[in-house]
C-alpha cells in the first residue's frame, strides 16, 4: 500500500530449536503482511506463541526474517545503505513491556534518554540537554529527573522514561509492545493518554501490541489478530473489538472480561489449550479449540476471506463457495 511508512510482505521467521533431542523448526511468524500509515495506530492482538514479539523484533530490524521483507518508506530494509539504516534507527523507536529491564541501572536517566541522539551528528551538548528536558516534561516528569538513576523511580515512572527516550529523536514510528500490561490500573490510563497525546503531537504511526482487546480498542485504528504465527483476522478496531468474525477473536472478546457484573454471557467462550508453536495443528491452526469446526477445518488451512465487518478473516465459515453449497 502506498503511503505506508513501515510495511511487511510475506514476513516469516523460522527458528531452529532443539526439542526432545531433535532439531526442529519453530515457525514463529508465517506469511504476515503489515501496512502502517503515518498518524494511524495498528493494533496487533494475540496470546502466547502467536508470534507478536518476534514480529515486533523483525519490524525493528533486531532480527532478520527467513522469508519476506520489511519496507521502510518504500525501501527494502534488507539492503539499506548505512545512511538509510541510521535514518531508520532515528525514525523507528520501541517501547517494551518491562520497565525494569528497559533502563540500564548504571546510567543516569538523562544519559539513557539521550542515547538515541548519540548517532545524530552535529548536536551540541546544550541541544541534547534541552531535548532531554523537553521530553521529560512531555511525559509528565521533571527536567531535573535527568540527573537521577532508574532505581529511584517507580514502575510507572520508568515506563514514562522509556517513552521519553523513544521520542527523543523525533521518530515517525513507535513500536509499543504491551507498554502498560505490567502497570497498575490507575497508571495505565495515564500512560495510554500520554501515548495518544504524543502521537497527535508528533504525527506518529504506532504499532500497539497487546493481548487486551479493550486497550487495543482505545489505542488502535486498525487491528490484526495473530494465532500461532499467522494473521487470522484483520479489520478496523471497532469491527474487531465489537463484531469479530473469526472464532478465535470471538473467544478473545469473550475472555476480555468487562468491569460489569451484569455483562451478558458470551456466546462463544474460549475452550481448549493453546497448541505449542513447535507442533501446530494441521489445517486451520485453531481447529483443535474451535466449537464451530467442521471436517474441512481439520485438513485445509483457510485463506483470508472477506468478513462481514469489512475486513478479512481466515475461517472456512466465511467461504462464499461453501455457503453456496449449503
Amino acid at each position: 500500500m502506498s503511503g505506508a511508512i513501515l510495511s511487511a510482505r510475506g514476513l516469516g521467521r523460522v527458528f531452529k530449536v532443539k526439542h526432545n533431542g531433535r532439531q526442529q523448526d519453530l515457525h514463529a511468524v508465517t506469511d504476515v503482511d503489515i501496512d502502517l500509515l503515518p498518524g494511524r495506530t495498528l493494533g496487533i492482538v494475540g496470546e502466547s506463541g502467536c508470534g507478536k514479539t518476534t514480529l515486533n523484533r523483525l519490524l525493528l530490524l533486531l532480527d532478520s526474517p527467513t522469508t519476506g521483507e520489511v519496507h521502510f518508506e518504500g525501501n527494502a530494509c534488507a539492503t539499506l545503505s548505512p545512511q538509510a539504516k541510521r535514518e531508520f534507527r532515528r525514525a523507528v523507536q520501541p517501547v517494551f513491556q518491562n520497565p525494569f529491564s528497559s533502563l540500564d541501572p548504571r546510567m543516569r536517566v538523562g544519559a539513557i534518554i539521550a542515547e538515541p541522539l548519540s548517532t545524530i551528528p552535529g548536536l551540541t551538548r546544550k541541544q541534547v540537554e534541552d531535548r532531554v528536558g523537553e521530553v521529560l516534561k512531555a511525559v509528565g516528569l521533571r527536567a531535573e529527573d535527568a540527573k537521577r538513576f532508574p532505581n529511584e523511580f517507580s514502575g510507572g515512572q520508568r515506563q514514562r522514561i522509556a517513552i521519553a527516550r523513544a521520542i527523543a529523536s523525533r521518530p515517525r514510528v513507535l513500536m509499543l509492545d504491551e507498554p502498560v500490561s505490567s502497570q497498575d490500573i490507575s497508571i495505565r490510563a495515564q500512560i495510554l493518554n500520554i501515548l495518544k497525546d504524543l502521537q497527535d503531537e508528533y504525527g506518529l504511526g504506532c504499532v500497539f501490541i497487546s493481548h487486551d482487546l479493550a486497550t487495543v480498542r482505545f489505542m488502535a485504528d486498525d487491528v490484526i489478530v495473530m494465532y500461532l504465527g499467522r494473521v487470522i483476522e484483520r479489520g478496523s478496531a471497532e469491527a474487531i473489538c465489537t463484531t469479530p468474525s473469526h472464532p478465535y477473536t470471538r473467544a478473545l472478546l469473550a475472555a476480555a472480561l468487562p468491569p460489569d457484573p451484569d455483562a451478558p454471557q458470551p456466546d462463544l467462550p474460549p475452550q481448549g489449550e493453546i497448541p505449542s508453536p513447535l507442533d501446530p495443528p494441521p489445517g486451520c491452526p485453531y481447529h483443535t479449540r474451535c466449537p464451530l469446526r467442521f471436517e474441512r477445518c481439520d485438513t485445509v488451512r483457510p485463506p483470508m476471506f472477506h468478513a462481514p465487518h469489512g475486513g478479512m478473516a481466515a475461517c472456512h465459515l466465511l467461504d462464499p463457495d461453501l455457503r453456496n453449497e449449503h
Partner: protein
Amino acid sequence: MKTMAPPLLDMRNVSVRLGGNADSLPLIENISLAIAEGETVGLVGESGSGKTTLGMSLMRLLPPLLEKGLSGEIIYAGRDITALSPAEMTAVRGGEISMILQDPMASLNPIFTIGNQLKEGLRLHATARGTLEERAIAALESVRIPSPEARLANHPHQMSGGMRQRVVGAISLTRAPRLLIADEPTTSLDVTIQYQFLELLKDLQRRLGMAMLFITHDFGVVAKMCDRVVVMYAGQIVEEGPVREIFHRPAHWYTRALLDSIPTVDRTPRRLPTIPGSPPPVAARPAGCRFHPRCANAQAKCLESPKVLDVGAGHTTRCWFPLQAQRGAA
C-alpha cells in the same frame, strides 16, 4: 441476601506492622472483614494497597518481621487463628483453608511428578474410597485436565502455565477446603486460559460450597467471580459492598475514578479519565483521608481521617462525602 449465620472468617481490627513496636510502619491498618460460608469476596487494590499482605496474614504466611507486627483477631470457624501454634496452623492451612498463588511454581515442586504431589495431599485426607491412584485421577478430572492418567507421570515443567495452575487447584482442593484464598491466580495466564480457569473455579466452588477470597487488581475478574467486593487503598479498606453496588453505584471517589479509567471494548473516548499522581509508598501515606491528595472532591474536612459510613444495604465506605449519583449515566 446473606444468611445471618456467623461468618466463616471474621477479621477484626487486623494490622500488620513492619516490626513489633506499636509505632512501626503499618502495612495494613485496622482491617475488619468478614466472609460468609460459600461467599466469594473480591479484594481489589493497586500496588501498596496491602491486599497481598492481607491475604498472607490470613494464611499466617508473613515473613518473620511482619509476623511480629501482626495484631488483631482472625476468627476462623470460631477459633482465633492468630493464637495458633505453627503446628496447629499448618494443620489448618492446606486443609480447611487452602490457597492458590500467582505463580504455580511457587506451589509445585519441580522435582516430583504431578501424581506424586497429588497423592501426597490425598494421603492426608484419609476418608475416601478408591485407591490413591484412582483418587488422583479423579482430582485431575475435577479440574478438567484431559488425559489425566498420562498426566500423573508428568513433571510440572512439562505442562503449560494454565495446566499447572489447574494442578495447584486440584491439590488445593484435595482436602475440600471451606475457604480458598486465591492471590492473583490468573495474572500470569493468557486471557483465554484465564477465562476457562475462572469458570472452573466457579464451578468447583458451587460444587464444594466453599468460600473464596479472590485477591486481584483486575476489575473484570471481580465482576465475573465475586459476590462482594472490598476495595483497598494505602493499607485501608475504603469501600465494601455487594458487587453490583460497587460497580454501578460506587460510593468512594477512588473506586469511581478507578472504574472510569478502565478502557472497555465498546467505548472510544478521546482520552481516558485518570487519577492524578500515584498510590503513596508505605512510608509516606498522607494524613487524614489517604486518598485526598488525588481526589477530585477533596475538601478541608478530608484532612481528618474519615469514618466508615453506611451508604446502602451492606455497602460501606470510608469517606466524608460519598458519591450518590449512579455511575455510567453518561
